[in-house]
Every structure is written in C-alpha cells, then in structure tokens.
C-alpha cells in the first residue's frame, strides 16, 4: 500500500519521510509536507511540557479513514501520516503529513484536508504543563470552522 500511517512515542525523521515520498516516484511532481511542533506559548500560557493521550483502538482507524477520504477527493500518490503520543517538550515534532501528487493543487489540498480532519476528529488529547500547573488543552474553535472549507 502507498500509505504510511503510524502512531508512535518515538520522534520521526523528516528527511527519511521526505525521501520515502520522493524516491522512485517520478510520476509525481509535487510533494507537500506539514509538520506540527510543540509551541512555547498556547492559549495565554507558557508551555513547558505536553502529554499526548489517545484512544489506542481508534487512532489508526481514524487516520486511515481520513486518508481514504482524501484519496476519494483528489488524485494522490503517496501519503504519510505520523502522530506522536506521550511526553513532548517545546520544539518537539508532534505530527507529520506528507502527500505527493502529479499536480500541485491536489498535493496542497490533500495535505490540508488530512490535517484539518485530523485536528477535528482523530482521538488525541493534549495535557499541558504550564506555570499554573497541568491543564487540558482547550479545543480551538478554528479547527471545527476549518472543516467548512471542505463541505460540498
């Protein structure tokens, strides 16, 4: 299968992921990647550490469904989605989405669609360590609004 979908504690290597999307793939002239990192500041607090919890039986199913929906809407080549769980700190990589296509627009739309649905539906929850102690990250209303872009 052309899709790599992983949920893991370990960090990922952007360079290796990019090479896997590119290697022996001369029919696809466009590669779009998204990487999400732990920011130092979120919702009015300095962030020290994050703990990423998930619903283990569902996470990979959810990501697989989202990727399948993207494939139905655009002509996409290779797709990689990597999401980390567990303890993360400032500047750490959290998520990678990489999409190849023969066409630039399909690659951009596919990658953004996957990220928008991942943010709205994939069962991950972040708990932050802040100066005021630990707290659950609040969902961002922009993330549900982002889905309206994909209605049709």
């Amino acid at each position: 299968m052309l899709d790599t979908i992983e949920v893991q504690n370990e960090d990922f290597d952007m360079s290796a992921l990019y090479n896997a999307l590119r290697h022996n793939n001369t029919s696809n002239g466009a590669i779009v990647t998204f990487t999400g990192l732990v920011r130092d500041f979120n919702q009015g607090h300095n962030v020290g550490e994050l703990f990423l919890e998930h619903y283990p039986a569902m996470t990979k199913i959810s990501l697989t469904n989202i990727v399948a929906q993207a494939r139905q809407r655009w002509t996409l080549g290779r797709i990689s989605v990597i999401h980390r769980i567990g303890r993360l700190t400032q500047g750490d990589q959290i998520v990678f989405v990489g999409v190849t296509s023969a066409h630039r627009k399909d690659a951009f739309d596919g990658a953004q669609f996957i990220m928008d649905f991942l943010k709205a539906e994939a069962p991950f929850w972040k708990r932050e360590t802040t100066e005021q102690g630990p707290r659950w990250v609040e969902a961002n209303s922009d993330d549900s609004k982002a889905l309206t872009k994909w209605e049709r």
Partner: protein
Amino acid sequence: MAEKPVIGNEARGTQMINVLFFGQLREQLNTDKLSLDTVSNVKALKIVLAQRGVIWRDILASDSTLVAVNQIISNEETTLCDGDEIAFFPPVTGG
C-alpha cells in the same frame, strides 16, 4: 432498563456493551470504562448514563461531547449491538 456495571469486563459475546471515557471526561466522571446491558442506540445509552448524576447528565448533553461507536465517529441515532464499544470524549486536540 436495569443498569448493571461490570467494570473492566469484556462485553463481546454477552448481551452487553463496553463504554469508554477519554481525556477530561474521564477525569470529570472519574471513570474510564463501564460494561452495561445493551441498549438500542446512543441516545438510549445517554439516558441510562445520565441517571448516574448531574455531572454525567451535563456532560452527555453537551454539544461538544463526541461519541464513537466501534471506533467510528457516530451520533445519537447510531444503533448499538451486543459487544459494541462506545467511547465518549471531549473535543480532540491532537496535531
């Protein structure tokens, strides 16, 4: 509908369903898993759970509470069968 929690048991093969709670919900309800008698759909399950107290009722009535049936995002009309796994959780915050 009698409520018969059997915490931590596997419902598959019995006339029961497994109900899971994640994130802030799990802490607010102080519960991560219940096994309950099978009910017709998600709406009926919410009615059963709401009997556990005000906090249960409020959380289950909230528009922001999500539900997945057998790991697929679902809604109140989704029908339930013996052995199903139902999960309630707050808005997701991955990515």
